C-alpha cells in the first residue's frame, strides 16, 4: 500500500543521506521524495511516498524515522485531509501545426500550461495530484513523449485540523 509520510527535519548536512540510508538499511521502498525548506529557516519538510506491504511494516518505518535525532516530526498523512501536489514537465513532439492546436485544447481542462516551444516540440507544465498527472500523461502519450520529469508528491494537511504528530507510542495491535 502507498502511504504519504510527511517529515520535518533539521536542515543540516547529511540529513537526506540519513533518511534514505535508513530506508535502504530497512528495505523500505521509496516511490518518491520531495524536500525543501519549511516555515522556519533551520527546518526542512520532506514528503515521502512509500510502498509498504502491511501495517506492521508501516509502523516500523515511522518508528525508525522517529528514532533519527535530526527528525523532529513524523506523520503518516495518507488518511488525513490533505493537499497533495506534484509537478510534471512533459516534452511532447509536434510534427505539424495541427498537433500543436490539438495539444493546446487537450491540456486546457488540466489547467496545464505550455512553458517552452520549439519547432518540433512543446514542453507542458502540469501541477496536481498524481492521478491527474497520470491521466494527462496517458492522453499525451500518443503524440510521442520525448522527455518527462516528475517532482514527486509534496503535501500538507488541510486547514487547522488537529495534527496527529507523534508516532503512535503503542503497537498497532493495541
Amino acid at each position, binding site marked *: 500500500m502507498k502511504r504519504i509520510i510527511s517529515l520535518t*527535519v*533539521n536542515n543540516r*548536512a*547529511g540529513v537526506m*543521506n*540519513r533518511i534514505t*540510508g*535508513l530506508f535502504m*538499511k530497512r528495505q523500505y521502498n521509496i516511490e518518491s521524495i520531495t524536500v525543501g525548506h519549511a516555515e522556519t529557516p533551520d527546518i526542512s519538510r520532506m514528503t515521502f511516498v512509500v510502498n509498504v506491504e502491511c501495517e*506492521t511494516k508501516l*509502523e*516500523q518505518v515511522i*518508528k*525508525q524515522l*522517529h*528514532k*533519527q*535525532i*535530526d*527528525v*523532529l516530526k513524523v506523520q503518516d498523512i495518507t488518511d488525513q485531509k490533505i493537499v497533495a501536489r506534484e509537478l510534471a514537465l512533459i516534452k511532447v513532439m509536434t510534427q505539424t501545426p495541427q498537433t500543436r492546436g490539438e495539444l493546446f485544447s487537450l491540456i486546457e481542462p488540466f489547467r496545464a500550461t505550455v512553458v517552452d516551444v520549439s519547432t518540433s516540440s512543446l514542453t507542458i507544465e502540469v501541477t496536481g495530484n498524481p492521478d491527474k498527472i497520470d491521466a494527462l500523461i496517458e492522453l499525451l502519450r500518443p503524440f510521442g513523449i520525448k522527455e518527462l520529469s516528475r517532482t514527486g508528491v509534496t503535501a500538507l494537511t488541510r486547514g487547522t485540523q488537529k495534527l496527529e504528530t507523534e*508516532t503512535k*507510542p*503503542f*503497537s*498497532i*495491535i*493495541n
Partner: protein
Amino acid sequence: MAANLKVENKTETAKKKMTGAEILIESLKRENVEVIFGYPGGAALPIYDALYGKSIKHILTRHEQGAIHAAEGYARVSGKPGVVLATSGPGATNLVTGIADAMLDSLPLVILTGQVGTNVIGTDAFQETDVISITMPITKHNYQVRDVKDMPRIVKEAFHIASTGRPGPVLIDIPKDIATSEAVFEYPETVHLPGYQPTIVPNQMQIKKVVAAIKKAKKPVILCGAGVIFAKAHEELRKFSEVTNIPVVSTLHGLGAMPYNHEQYVGMAGMHGIYAANMALYECDLLINIGSRFDDRLTGNLKHFAPKATVVHIDIDPAEIGKNVETHIPVVGDAKEALKALLNEIEQSFSFPEWNAHLKEYQKEYPLWYKQEGDELKPQKVIEIVHELTKGEAIVTTDVGQHQMWAAQYYGFKEPNLLVTSGGLGTMGFGVPAAIGAHMANPGRPCISIVGDAGFQMTNQELSIIKQYNLPIKIIIINNFSLGMVRQWQQLFYEERYSESLVPVQPDFVKLADAFGIEGVRIESPAEAEKVLKKVIESDGPVLVDCRVTADENVYPMIAPGSGSHEMIGVKPL
C-alpha cells in the same frame, strides 16, 4: 572599583581563546572522562598534542579495533560512555567493526576521529575517508564539526545521546583545521535536542494493563534482557519476580541481572539456552519482556515463539516494540521506572505453584549436560572450574562461538555487569581487548577473558597492553584447533563437510605469551585444570592458559536454525 576590576579580569581569563583540540579535551574533562582508548595519526595530531600532559589517561592499544573493543568493555562494566580516539582514513575504518558491535549491543560510546582539513575534504586527500557516511547506519548519531564554535555543544550532545535512552555509539569527526582554529571555550549546561526525547516514565494505563494481565495469567514468565542491566533495575526485577512469583528467563545479555542460583530464576533461553527456559517461553500464557529486543538467536522460528502468550514488551526504544514479535501490551519506558511502577501498582502477592513446579521439573529432567570421557579436558569443565574458583563474581569477557556459549551456560553469574560479550554482531576478537576496558572500569574484580583459539588470534596484539599496564587479566583459551561453532554447524547441517573450519597449524600460545612477557601455561586434563587454574586465578599478574579441550565437542542443547524454541536438539546426553 577594585572589586569590579577583579571580576572583569576573571571573565577575561575565562574567555581566553583555545584551539578546537584544547576545547575538545576540556569538554571531555567536563564529561568526567577518565580514560581514552586510542591510536594517533596525522589528522589526529592536534588532538594528541592537546592531550599531552593532561590528566585524562590514554591507553595506546596496538590496533584501533583493540581500542574500540576496550572502550566497549569499559562502557559495559561501568555503564559510562567509553571514549575512543583515532585518526582519519584507516584509523577510522579500523573502528567500524567495534562501532557496529556497540550499536547492536546498545553500548554507550563517544568516538572521536581525526579528519583531513576542511579545505581538502572531498579531494581524496591522504588518509581521507568519508567516515560520516560509513558510520551513519551503525551509529546512534554522528557529527562532523564544521565550525570550532560548535565543538562544546557537539561534545555535550554526543555524551547525552550516547548515554541516555537506549544507549549507543556516537561519532564525532574532527577536521584537522577545526582542531587548530581557535574559539572561546564555553561549555553548555544543557542540551537542546527537540528531535530526541526518550520516554523514561511509562504510561500508567499500560502498567495497569500489565497488572491485569498478571491477574489473569496461569503461566506467566519474565524475559530479562540487557535493558534491565542498563537501567540498573536488577534489584527491582528480583523484587518483582519475588512478589509476583513469576519465573525469570534471561537473554545472553541479561545474564547476571538475576543471580544464577535464585529460586525464581529458570536460566538462559535462546539457541543454546537451557530446555526449561525455552519451554517456559513456549508454554507461557503471559510473556513479560523487559529490555530484550527479541533477537532471532533468542526466539528461534518466530512462528513458534510464545504461541499462546499475551505479550508484554517493556522497552525504552519504541521501535523495538512490535518489530519482531506481535505485542499486546506495549510499555515504552526505562526498565527501572517500569518495574517501580509495576511494584507500586501491585496490591497483592501472586503465586503460581504449579507452573513454577512444572518448570523446576524441566530443570531437573533436562539439565545442561556433557560427558566426561577418559582423561580428556572438556571445555565445559574448564568453565565450571573457573566459576567455582571465582564464585560467579568475576568479570567474564568472551569472543563469539562455542566458548562464548559454554561461558554463558556454565559460568553462573551472580551479579549484573559481569558478562562482557559480543552478542548482536558476534565479533570474533572481542574478548581480549574488551577485558582491558572491563578491568579498567572495575579493577577490584577478577577479570577472566574466555576466548577461542581462532578469535584470540584476531586481536592478540593487545597482550602488549596487558603487559604494559600489568593488568591481572586471565586469558583462558578454549583451544580446539578449529573455528568451533562453524565446525559444529558443518557437522550438524552440512554433512560434516568441514570447509575451512579446521586450523591444525597455530602458534604455540604459551610461547606467544612469553614473547609478550606474560606467563603462559598449558593444560590438557581435568586434573591439571583443577590444579593449574587455581594457581592462575590466585596469581597477581596476567596469565594466559592454553586449554587443549576435546576438539569435536559440541554446544548443546540447541535450537537448530529454522526450528522453534520447543524443538531443541541435544537436550539429553546423546
